[in-house]
């Protein structure tokens, strides 16, 4: 079964399409919606998005792989984006990154086996006056120290465990060939 958008996503997409003079221009917003729903963008989802925006799957593939925020493979529930660019580097950004690597037992670019965290070494995230810093979703974590990072990671993991308890019985991979993010509608 090829994947389909949920009713909620379809509504969001309809609204997005009405804001542009052609469907192709809505490609980035539609990809964001698709990634919100399916967790990442494997081939079947790329084909679905191509159909939605009236462009070729090859075009969508080219766009997806051009931008760093679109993922072709599954990412963890919490994506930790740690800045190591100059302003953060000067104030210990790499120390923070290495501390997280050690604490989670993964390298930058990897996901923890339980799917709780993906660690990303990021370029400047525009919070230079509060370096070193990282983003997780809508949350900014500023003026970091290794101690602060410990508290943040413990807190995120606790919240993730609570969410896990509430996710659908089928769990990850329920949707054939695609696999929703934990907590997403299957």
């Amino acid at each position: 079964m090829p994947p389909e958008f949920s009713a909620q996503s379809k509504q969001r997409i309809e609204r997005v399409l009405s804001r542009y003079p052609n469907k192709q221009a809505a490609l980035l917003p539609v990809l964001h919606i698709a990634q919100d729903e399916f967790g990442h963008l494997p081939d079947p989802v790329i084909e679905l998005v191509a159909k939605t925006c009236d462009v070729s799957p090859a075009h969508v593939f080219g766009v997806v792989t051009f931008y760093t925020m679109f993922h072709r493979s599954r990412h963890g529930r919490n994506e930790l984006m740690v800045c190591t660019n100059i302003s953060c580097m000067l104030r210990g950004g790499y120390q923070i990154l290495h501390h997280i690597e050690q604490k989670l037992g993964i390298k930058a670019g990897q996901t923890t086996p339980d799917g709780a965290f993906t660690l990303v070494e990021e370029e400047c995230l525009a919070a230079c006056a509060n370096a070193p810093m990282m983003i997780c979703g809508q949350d900014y974590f500023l003026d970091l120290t290794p101690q602060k990072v410990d508290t943040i990671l413990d807190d995120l993991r606790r919240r993730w465990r609570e969410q896990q308890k509430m996710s659908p019985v089928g769990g990850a991979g329920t949707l054939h060939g695609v696999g929703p993010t934990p907590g997403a509608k299957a």
Partner: protein
Amino acid sequence: MANAEAANLKIVTKNFGVADSHKLSVYQQRGGGQAFRKALTMQPAALVDEVKKSNLRGRGGAGFPTGMKWSFIPKEAKTVYLVVNADESEPGTCKDRELMAYDPHLLLEGMLIASYALGCKHAYIYIRGEMMREARIVDEAIDEAYAAGLLGKEHYGASGAFKLDITLHRGAGAYICGEETGLLNSLEGKRGWPRLKPPFPAVRGLFNAPTVVNNVETLMNLPDIITKGGEWFAGVGMGKSGGTRIVCVSGHVAKPGVYELPMGISTRALIYDVCGGIPGGRALKGVIPGGSSMPPLDASEIDVPIEFDALMTDTRIKDVEIRPGVPFDLGGGRKLKTMAGSGGVVVFDDSTDVVALCARIMEFYAHESCGQCTPCREGSGWLARVCKRVARGEGEAGDIELMANVANGIGGNTICALGDAAAWPMLGFITKFRADFEAKLAQSAKARKAAEPTGGVGARA
């Protein structure tokens, strides 16, 4: 230097620190909305003139006069787009994010004024993908403005009916989309590849229509220009740069932050008076004055005002060179000093490994090169690899010349300015801190010698 009124003047950060400053009700209580009402009583051409008179210059990096940019829009154009560049990603720059988070309605009012002046009916805000929180705040502000009838409803101005729609468009992680034509391609659902110019966006931009792309901070200056007048705005500025200047100070200072300051304050005053000096009693090594793509200043050059023209021409700043005594040519014999750029001031003290710092900048541009032009795609990678090996202590004799040569081959030879953004700081760091690069090479030569077998080559055979 700016006039006395400018000392404590706040134009774009005037609502910072006010509770719920992101809400429309608070914005209106504090006088927001008056400027747009006044603008509606004026003819669009008069608004463009007012902005020209104000000496407002683009705050995204290039410092191009805003009024002049607007005047390039053909008079007979039926569809015109205004696009807000909120793709802030220049390392060291963190102003637009804060401006949008604290005062999104000031941005929307600036967009209303600009759209009325330009004849734009649908404006887009291209916000950086990673800024999910700010996207939510701006989206909520747009909803509020629709509910209040500011957007999506006809206003009656001196030139007739005027109605504006605004759409927030999220990017998806690509520095190159901050380049205005890369941004337009991205907004059209394509890879963010910069376009060849001409045609410039003012002639053929978004969806092939005449388009103005303005930075967030630039537009947020408009309400005060309209209420107080272009002459007033020019008067509080310095030389040909009107208004105040937002600087984002990061790195080795006691009080890093986003500050709105008089145009033309010196880097020295910024570091030692505003930001509390360098912590730990250390000495200053250098400063990047306008985001990582700008050549750095060394400690002897910090008395120059942080103003667009001064940083480009002041003779107290050394010319950037391709080799000792030979200045880099910007074309037509113009020499490169540095630029005010995006206002991202990065301060580094004498404990800093400047070669490693430079290597990190090169790594960034190599990562962000879009791959369209060979000099930038290949060259930025070369710069990153060679600079990193020098920083690691694995450099070879001639590496400094190699890097300068590669950088010189990129500068001015690419479709967009990203190539220059890699080449300029590379040449700048070598020019200002050559001794540090040489010391690294001397170290690695010594280490290599020590590792050689005592009998010389072949002794072990």
